[in-house]
């Protein structure tokens, strides 16, 4: 693998290129990520969308180099511009090395899906948040405490002075997620990864938490990578969206463009399954079947077994390439690839409108 530290575009804080991740398991080799690429411009926010099992979380884990046991990055590069300006390829670093540990939590922080289980039940919140500062700053004990209380205040936890010493299970879900955000912000990271930050929360709380994340991102000018299966969440949070299926990008577009003009059948299915608050009442669509095990990747286009708009044999024999349809709008589908687009047009229209 070549070293590509230097080749990083100025505006980007993260450039991931052709990432492959493999797991060895009893049931075979799991292949959660298959050539995923994306960029995050500094201070901007991107979304990664897809169903569960599409490899979104694995992408986040890859960035932090905390893949579960048996996981390995087998190909690709993940360049990161650190806070001090240094550019590193995360894929090349020793996962347990000094440098990687400083990047984890220091340059890149993460908010997890389940605030209930993401905190240790037997340590106080203060203990767990202060730890970040102990690792990534040289603050004294008193300063750390001040800072943690400050962070609690910042994320809107009432009575922060006494609440920092509480245990996670004493908090409500929303409060816990606020604490999680406080923890993620503790070391003033350059990149914040939010992995389904609101899935486990009540609907009323979801909006508050999302608003808080957005607010913090703006306030500290952090790059945000929001991982979600919920396109509804994406709309107000991010600038650019990557739609992911079985570990690869099937469509990528600025958020408005994507909503306006979804090209990939998968994106369309996803959009269809979002309940609409306005417009005519219609039955909520669902995508047929479920994401196959990554132990057995389907041949050809990976979406073809579930696709309602296959163009023909090429769908399971050929491999579609990612092509740029409009500016900054990429799609990976034979419907849109130059050589096959013609033959599919008709089928596509009819089925989609039906």
């Amino acid at each position, binding site marked *: 693998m070549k070293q590509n530290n230097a080749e990083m575009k100025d505006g980007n804080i993260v450039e991931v290129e052709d990432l492959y991740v493999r797991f060895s398991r009893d049931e075979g080799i799991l292949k959660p990520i298959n050539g995923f690429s994306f960029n995050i411009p500094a201070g901007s926010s991107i979304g990664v969308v897809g169903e569960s099992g599409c490899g979104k979380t694995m992408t986040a884990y890859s960035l932090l180099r905390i893949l*579960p046991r048996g996981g390995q990055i087998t190909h690709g590069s993940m360049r990161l511009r650190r806070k001090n300006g240094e550019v590193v390829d995360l894929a090349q670093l020793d996962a347990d090395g000094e440098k990687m*540990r400083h*990047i984890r*939590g220091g340059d890149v922080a993460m908010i*997890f899906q389940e605030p209930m289980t993401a905190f240790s039940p037997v340590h106080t919140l203060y203990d767990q948040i202060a*730890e970040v500062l102990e690792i990534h700053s040289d603050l004294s004990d008193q300063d750390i405490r001040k800072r943690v209380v400050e962070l609690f205040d910042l994320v809107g936890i009432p009575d922060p002075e006494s609440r920092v010493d509480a245990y996670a299970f*004493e908090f409500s879900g929303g409060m816990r997620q606020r604490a999680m955000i406080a923890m993620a912000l503790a070391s003033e990271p350059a990149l914040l990864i939010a992995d389904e930050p609101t899935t486990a929360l009540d609907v009323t709380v979801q909006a508050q938490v999302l608003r808080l994340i957005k607010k913090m991102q703006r306030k500290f000018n952090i790059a945000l990578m929001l991982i979600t299966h919920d396109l509804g969440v994406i709309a107000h949070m991010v600038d650019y969206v990557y739609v992911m299926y079985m570990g690869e990008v099937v469509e990528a577009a600025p958020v408005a463009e994507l909503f306006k003009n979804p090209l990939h059948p998968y994106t369309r299915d996803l959009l269809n399954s979002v309940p609409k608050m306005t417009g005519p009442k219609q039955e909520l669509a669902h995508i047929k079947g479920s994401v196959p095990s990554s132990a057995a990747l389907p041949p050809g286009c990976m979406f073809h077994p579930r696709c309602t708009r296959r163009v023909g044999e090429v769908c399971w024999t050929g491999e579609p390439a990612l092509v740029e349809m409009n500016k900054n709008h990429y799609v990976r589908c034979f419907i849109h690839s130059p050589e096959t687009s013609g033959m599919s047009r008709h089928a596509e229209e009819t089925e989609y409108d039906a």
Partner: protein
Amino acid sequence: MFNYIARRILLMIPTLVAISMLIFFLIQLPPGDAITSRLAQLQAEGSEISEEAIAALRARFYLDDPVHVQYLRWVGGFFRGDLGYSVVHEQPVSTLVGDRLGYTMLIAVGSVLFTWVIAFPLGFYSAIRQYSTSDYVFTIFAFLGMATPNFLLALVLMYLGHTYFGISVGGLISPEFMGQPYSFAKLVDLLKHIWIPMVVVGTAGTAGLVRILRANLLDELQKPYVITARAKGLKSLNLIFKYPVRIAINPFISTVGWMLPAIFSGDAIVGVVLNLPTIGPLLLESLMTQDMYLAGSILLIMSALTVFGTLVSDLLLAAIDPRIRYD
């Protein structure tokens, strides 16, 4: 927290009452009673005994009272600090049990420590290096320990200890130190002997604990909070010790309670094989001779210690696990 302790202590009382009743019932089951043993003893000395004398002996030890009166007398004694009276030995149970209980507890504590010292690194390492060769080797050894009958291990260790280390056979103290005042040399001698029962009694429990720790740790290692902690940039060893180990260690704490019955069982059989001056052989003897107050009191002491041990481990658990504390 106070409520929790109070509730746990209150719960002990009915348990102990039930245990004492069950024990009293059980020790009545075998045929014959302490008097027949006493007679056997007298006959072994060459005496002949009359029926009247037997009746007198029975009355003297209140063995002709109704069973519930006997029970109440026995249990009532405990409140006055009277552990009962051995008919066969013609001695207070407390005198007989005294030192032996000390040695038994010494072996118990030693076995628990041995179990911990062996089980912790083994279980830890097995979990961290799951499916590695060492994991398999440790697992096999843990299983071997579990599978070897206590008495066999004791017998073989006693033989090896004698043949290769010159440890005198049986007992806890070499003959040359018997009756000597306590000294450093005697202590060393005691340690030279006591490791065998400790190892034997501890081995059986080690396997289970290794397996539990390994499974728990593997479980905990996959918990989201571990990932959270990793994402913070903690060193992995620090992380494992601070988070999953802290939770997976609970079985070690709760061992204190549930290991005691196993240790007493182990002590009974190892004590018999190795001729230890512990409580186990005395119990076996008292069961054989139907010395029911002695047997009953020993069983009750063991059970009460167990109940107390469980209480202690529950409290310890509560101390380290806020979830229980705040429950």
